[in-house]
């Protein structure tokens, strides 16, 4: 085992530094929730104002692809939670395996999401140039616009999450982050990953299951 990491400037001991790191991430996540909150609000308002069209266009979304993606994310969250547990017990290899497989599930999600966009484009139901022959009402198009904006914003977050998981795995692999002393990096990344997961849990019914 390597030397204990040095405590950084403002801190007096490691416990304090650890707690501060976790708290900082939680506050950041609260901020992220408010960011998506604005979009949820917009979706809710449009749903209220044009319920008929929203339902009509929501029915055309590939809800089963969304369901598979939901399961992928839930599973990955489980893996990440397990990684946190293992990191506290310094089970380095288990942590590595769990983080990398969670990142893999995240990539699968992104791949499936990309396929979904592509098929929607083929069907003429994606509100981008050349892909919207089938969209023929303004509120319907608005709903699909919000669908595209919110899911792609989520995808950006997920991409950042995948990168973060891989970076943390890399640091643990090269032993730049020693376990269990630096388990805080696993914990904060996991917290971020769970949030991205939870946002999807809200987006999925809002967009795919509007009836």
């Amino acid at each position, binding site marked *: 085992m390597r030397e204990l990491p040095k405590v950084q*400037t*403002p*801190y*007096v001991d490691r416990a*304090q530094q650890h*707690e*501060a790191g976790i*708290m*900082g991430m939680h*506050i*950041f996540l*609260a*901020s*992220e929730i*408010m*960011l*998506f*909150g*604005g*979009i949820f*609000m*917009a979706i809710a*308002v*449009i749903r209220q*104002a*044009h319920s008929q*069209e929203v339902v009509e266009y929501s029915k055309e979304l590939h809800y089963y692809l969304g369901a598979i993606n939901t399961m992928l994310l839930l599973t990955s969250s489980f893996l990440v939670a397990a990684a946190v547990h293992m990191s506290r017990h310094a089970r380095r290899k288990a942590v590595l395996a769990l983080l990398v497989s969670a990142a893999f599930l995240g990539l699968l999600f992104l791949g499936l999401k990309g396929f979904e966009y592509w098929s929607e484009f083929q069907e003429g139901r994606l509100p981008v140039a050349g892909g919207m022959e089938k969209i023929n*009402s*303004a*509120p319907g*198009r*608005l709903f699909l*616009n*919000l669908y595209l*904006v919110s899911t792609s914003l989520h995808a950006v977050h997920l991409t950042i999450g995948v990168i973060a998981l891989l970076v943390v795995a890399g640091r643990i692999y090269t032993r730049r982050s020693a376990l269990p002393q630096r388990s805080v990096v696993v914990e904060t990344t996991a917290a971020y990953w769970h949030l991205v997961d939870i946002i999807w849990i809200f987006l999925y019914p809002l967009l795919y299951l509007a009836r």
Partner: protein
Amino acid sequence: MSSVTNHDERPNPDNLDDPGLSETKTERVSYLRAGHTLRSWLFTTDHKRVALLYMMSITFFFFIGGIAAAFVRADLLTPSADLMTNEGYNRAFTLHGVIMVWFFLIPSIPNTFGNFLIPLMIGARDLAFPRLNLLSWYIFILGGIFTLFVLILGGVDTGWTFYTPLSSMYANGNVVLVATAVFIVGFSSILTGLNFIVTIHKLRAPGMTWGRLPLFIWSHYATSVILVLATPVLSVTLALIAAERLFGLGIFNPELGGDPLLFQHLFWFYSHPAVYIMVLPALGVVSELVAAAARKPVFGYKFVAGSSIAIAVIGFLVWGHHMFVSGQSIYASAVFSFLSLVVAVPSGIKIYNWTATLYKGDISLDPPFLFAMGFIGLFVVGGLTGLAVAMLAIDVHLHDTYFVVAHFHYIMVGGTVSAYFGALHFWWPKIVGRLYSVVWGRLSAMFIFIGFNFTFFPQFILGYEGMPRRYHVYPEQFQVLHDMSSIGASILGIAYLMPAVYLYYSLRYGQPAGNNPWNVTGLEWTIPSPPPKHNFDEIPTVDGPPYNYPVRKEAKHA
């Protein structure tokens, strides 16, 4: 403190042995001398240096925003359009609003004095995340450069409120660029707020319990909560505006099934709490100044501390009072009006408690206290006229008139800017280690107060008489009051420049301040001025309440 600068003992620049001129021993080991290169400043993680970086940047933006205001006031000297075109005028007041709100008022006190003082006041060596702190300054600068870029490109003409569908479809300025600039600077706010919350939670010195925190810390805590929770809503709203302009998203466009009022709800959900971002730190500063001036604990510490939190929480529930005439439901309006009266209660508590603090105090009339007095007076007027526009029937008449302009300038400029100058005059000796001329300080406090009232009081009358805001040409009957306001603005402008002169002078010729020039309590006054790089040689232990001044008990009562 009246002998801060004795002119007979002014240091002689030709005499290198003069103790007032050369570096004192404290200064040689202070944060200011810990590295002399530009690099040592631009890559510093020392919260005190980051605070100074912020101070320089926001002073710069204050000047840019001030120049825009000068153009606006000069143009309003006559009822016709002579100095600027209609378009030019709209761009001038928009620029004034955008720069003053996001590049001066919001970062003003928190990012300078908050940054500098929070670790010192709670007995910490730095903020919880020093590198994040520096990053947040860089993000701020990036947003600022974007804004200057827009300025060079010709500006934007939507007003700082970006109301849709004007901003999303009809305006022909660089709306997307400005939205991007504000979007960027928002992340700087979020990171600063996050840093403060974690610092206050996790880095308090042993014995510094929540009940012993200076009130400055309490108000910054409340501010940070708003920064973290409200700013992202603005970010996403601005992103939606940009998407609307660039891709025709439609969410705010009624022709595409969107709702222009949704924008107002989202915008004010941020921007009303943002008012408290601007004023809560000022309330914290004034609590410190009043206690220090009276040499007494603040009357009703718990009420004053709790009122900051109450303002932050209730402040999230009053945004609809900006929309009484927008066509929102009258029941919603009635509820928002009521909640707006509720949020005034904690502010009222602060005002009355400060006044009670002065009772049987040992009051010094040094510049910081004069600024604090000015703050209290202007804040009372601003706050109570705010209640007037929270009254539904009155607001229907006064909404979007100069009455509202006067009201929020009393809070933002009369309040926050006065507190900013009060803080500057109080902690200047701590920050630079030198004393300034109190005589000039008192004069500038007085001139700022007079110039301010001269500028903005006439606007209350203008507003009640029906002068709408953002009007470039106006009926002749309003000219006298507009001219008074413009003359007042030039007094105010000069008064704002005065401190720059004598504070700069103090850097060169001021007497060394010593640890505690005002003879007040607080951890920041127990260490040398300017403080050493790591603030405390040893983390202090706190064993008493704040403002623990000796109580006189040699009673006269029989």
